[in-house]
Structures are given as structure tokens and as C-alpha cells.
């Protein structure tokens, strides 16, 4: 009787494991070596404070996901006056909305790399964006590189003299 119970329990565990998802690899961002750059007519610069969750496995895209943010208060255009304007109430309003957030919902493989589709939140506006990226990994380390564009007016970022289309370049070295 005891042996039968043990057998049933083992069979249930085995059957259950067949439906258990295998998690994608969790990566930690290497502090101080990543870069988040933006460039548009009249302004270019960097943002720091990149943090969040990066689960990625090229062979397990359904379980891969990004949930990351950057700190708007770290914006640096190289010009103090532009920095203040960018963080000001009538642009990013960094005091009220200190983070720009991206949460992926789907990852796909493309001819040149991958594409992460998800929601980008700037201030109160959330928009669907697709971020093409590559991942070069070796051992316990790797680097994500991505380039994409957004239209700042989609996020109610209004400023005369600044280009509407903003090119964003991400280089994110990571380790396991």
C-alpha cells in the first residue's frame, strides 16, 4: 500500500513537470557600462538609472521578457539649461513621472536578431512599441544592442525647436 502511494505521487510529479515552463535566463545589467542614448534635431544625450528585469534565452523566446526602466532625472544633454528644460514640468515632468518604463509582451526572432514588442510608458502615456535588438552572449556575459525610434508627440512631449522623431540607441552589457 505504501509503495503504491509512493508510485502514484512520483507519477503525478513526473506528469506535472511536463507542463512546467522552463524559465529564460535572468540577466543582471552591468552597472556603469551600459548606455541609453537619444538623438533628435536640437537635442541629444544620455540617460542613466537603467534597471529592471531581463529574462532572455534565444532558444526560449516565449519565456523571455523585459521589464526595465530608466531614471528621467538622470537625463544629460551636456547642457545644464537643456537638462532643466527636459526635466521640467512642461516636458518630462521628472518630479511627477521619474521613470520611463518598457514592459515587453512578446519576443520574436528576426533575420537580423530579435524584436521585443511591448508597452512603453512615458509620463501617463502608454504606447505599443517594437524594439529590434541583437544579443551577443559568451559564457556568463552578453550584450544587448537595440535601436528604435519614437515620435515624442505620441507621448505628449511638446517642445518647439526639438525634432519630433527621436532615435534611441541601447547598449546593455549583462551578466548572469
Amino acid at each position, binding site marked *: 500500500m505504501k509503495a503504491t502511494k509512493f508510485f502514484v505521487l512520483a507519477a503525478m510529479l513526473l506528469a506535472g513537470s511536463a507542463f512546467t515552463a522552463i524559465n529564460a535566463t535572468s540577466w543582471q545589467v552591468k552597472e556603469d557600462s551600459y548606455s541609453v542614448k537619444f538623438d533628435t534635431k536640437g537635442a*541629444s544625450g*544620455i540617460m542613466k538609472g537603467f534597471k529592471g528585469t531581463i529574462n532572455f534565452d534565444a532558444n526560449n523566446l516565449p519565456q523571455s521578457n523585459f521589464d526595465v526602466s530608466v531614471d528621467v532625472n538622470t537625463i*544629460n*544633454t*551636456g*547642457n*545644464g*539649461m*537643456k*537638462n532643466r528644460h527636459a526635466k521640467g514640468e512642461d516636458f518630462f515632468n521628472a518630479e511627477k513621472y521619474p521613470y520611463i518604463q518598457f514592459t515587453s509582451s512578446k519576443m520574436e526572432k528576426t533575420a537580423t536578431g530579435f524584436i521585443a514588442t511591448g508597452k512603453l510608458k512615458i509620463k501617463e502615456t502608454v504606447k505599443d512599441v517594437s524594439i529590434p535588438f541583437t544579443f551577443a552572449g559568451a559564457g556568463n556575459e552578453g550584450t544587448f544592442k537595440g535601436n528604435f525610434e519614437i515620435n515624442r508627440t505620441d507621448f505628449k512631449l511638446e517642445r518647439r525647436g526639438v525634432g519630433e522623431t527621436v532615435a534611441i540607441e541601447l547598449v546593455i552589457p549583462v551578466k548572469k
Partner: protein
Amino acid sequence: MNWKKYLLHGIAAGVLAAVAGIIFLFIYQHSLGVSYEKVINPVAIVASSLFGCMLMAIGYAVLEKSGKERLKGLLNVLIALLSFASIIAPISMSLPLDTPNPDLFPGLAIPMHFFPALSFLAIAPFSKGTK
């Protein structure tokens, strides 16, 4: 026409402005704990101070050569106005992105833009009688 007088005036004023600029650079950076060495350094301060003061000296010399020395007052006003207008450069320039505290940079650079004119005009009365 005494070119030597104006050459000496320009060089003396340039050296004075450079000394003031370098002292101000060290005091400013030390007291605020910032560093703008990628953008501004003593060599650049000496070169730009001498260049600015020599331009002013050339202006004085040209007025004397053309017999319009009465217009020196007008030239002085122009020098002051140009010095004031030049502050737009440090306000609008973008520093290298790895330079921290870009907001404190104009506080360093703006006063320096007045040093050449200040020193040139300050020693102008001493240069008058030189032959």
C-alpha cells in the same frame, strides 16, 4: 604710429586676463568640486585671452593709423558689447556627455568672457603715454 605700444598693450592685457582666468578656474573647480578639464584648461585660457586682447589692440592701432582716435570710446563700448554677447556660447554649448554637472559650467565660463575686455580697458590709460 607706434605698433610696439599696441603690441605690448595687447600682450600685457592678455597675460593679465589669462592669469585671472586660470586663478578663477582653480578656485571655481576646487570650491564646487567640479572638473571641466575636457572643455577648458589653462592653455586654452592663455590662448583665448591673448587672442582677444590682441584683437582689441589691433582695433586701437587701426583707429590711430586712420586718425580716428576719438572713436576709441565707441570701440570700448563695442568691446564691452561683444564680450557680453559672447556669453551665449557657454550657455548654449553642450559638454561631453561624461562631464558631470554641466549646469555649473556657465558659472565658470561666463565671467571668463569678460576678463580680456576688463584687463585691456583697465590698463589702457597706462598705455597712452608709451612711445
